[in-house]
């Protein structure tokens, strides 16, 4: 999965840091499986459109839907730069 862009998503909470990451292709099952290199993967295949959640480096979360070309990234309060670098290395 190659990262092609990201936008900050505003939510209700001051100091929270949520981004939408955009990729060059839609998430397939193999791509989702590849996230296991980054942390604990939780996958919900029984929803009408399968959902995945990765609890990744520093407690960052990636949330997305199989078949979509983007996902939501919720960064932890601490060590954000390091977490971003780790995630974005994975998506080179």
């Amino acid at each position: 999965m190659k990262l092609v862009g990201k936008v900050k998503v505003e939510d209700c909470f001051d100091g929270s840091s949520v981004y939408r990451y955009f990729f060059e292709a839609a998430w397939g099952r193999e791509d989702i499986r590849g996230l296991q290199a980054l942390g604990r993967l939780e996958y919900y295949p029984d929803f009408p459109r399968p959902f995945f959640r990765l609890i990744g480096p520093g407690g960052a979360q990636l949330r997305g839907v199989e078949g979509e070309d983007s996902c939501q990234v919720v960064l932890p309060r601490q060590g954000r730069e390091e977490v971003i670098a780790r995630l974005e290395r994975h998506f080179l």
Partner: protein
Amino acid sequence: MRIIYLNNAAGSWPKAPGVVEAVSGALEGMPAEAGRDSASLPDPREDCRRLLAGLLDVPWPERIALGSGATQALNQAILGCARLGVRHAVTTAAEHNSVLRPLRHLEQEGKLRLTIVGLKPDGSIDLDQFARALDGGGELAVVNHASNVTGKVNDAGTLFRMARERGAITLLDASQTLGAVPVRPQEMGAQMVAFTGHKALRGPEGTGGLYVSPDVELPAVLTGGTGVRSDLPLQPGEMPMRLEAGTPNSPGFAGLAAALRWVRENIASENARRRGLGSLLRRGLAAIPGVRVFDGGCPDDPGTGVVSFAIAGWDPDEAALVLDQCFGIRCRAGLHCAPEIHRWIGSAPKGTVRFSVSGSNTEQDIEAALSAVRALAAARPAGREAAA
């Protein structure tokens, strides 16, 4: 995937029949605004005022100033009261930021003392605390008619009777109720009522207004062009012109007038339908293991069509994301711009997921939403094996 829209408390969809055509017609025609050009076409705001006066059951359409929505109206009312000399405002923890923020800005500037009355665990206003706050010198009482989080309808009549007995000015935030629940300011003792056009009235975004009873001479906060009386150096004193500076949103008000005409003819059936669907939703959610419903202590819908809930194991914002993208259920999550109420009803710090229905929803929509919530509440991640 078909999208089921359950976010009517944020903005209604679909709009009332006739609204799209009215807005489109106004935009396609040449602009014609009273006093601002040589044409003498009817002003849609006059239709809106007449129809709103009927809905509010007041004989003074000219006391209804139209504007961009409830936020503008609430700011006008609150800042106007400060200009009138009000120095202590009493409000509640159930309020929206459109009430809390203007009051807090005045407090921060040292222009106002603010008392925020607490709530009971079901979200109802603590009447004893409200009375004590008024006894402490409250000069302005600001209360929402219904919470945009729980959908609970407050007993504004009792609250405002207490306020009026102590000489306070009363302001009702009817953002979630006008069109859905009877709002009769004279019966309720509400001297001012702020409302919006884009929620239960099912009109366009960017429309709303403020009713001001004849016994409150609210000064203008916003001043400028009125199209008429241009020779006066100051804002004209007559209502509604006093509170309507600037070019009006005529296409929006043409749409609002169409919505109000539709509401006038259909209010009973629309509201019965919303209430029925809302009750189905509340009872259905309450029956799902792992779901906590924040219903304001009302197992049946009080008329607003709004209900909040939380699903064990899911952050509200994540649950809303999954409901939308995996199940096609469009809703809202978080604090809903009402940050204080969550501390009292037990939904802090992350807030709730909120469903809100209109009469255009169907029983099938409700069943689909409940089925999706059941799926989330029962879901366990499949983990590595299934992903592989």
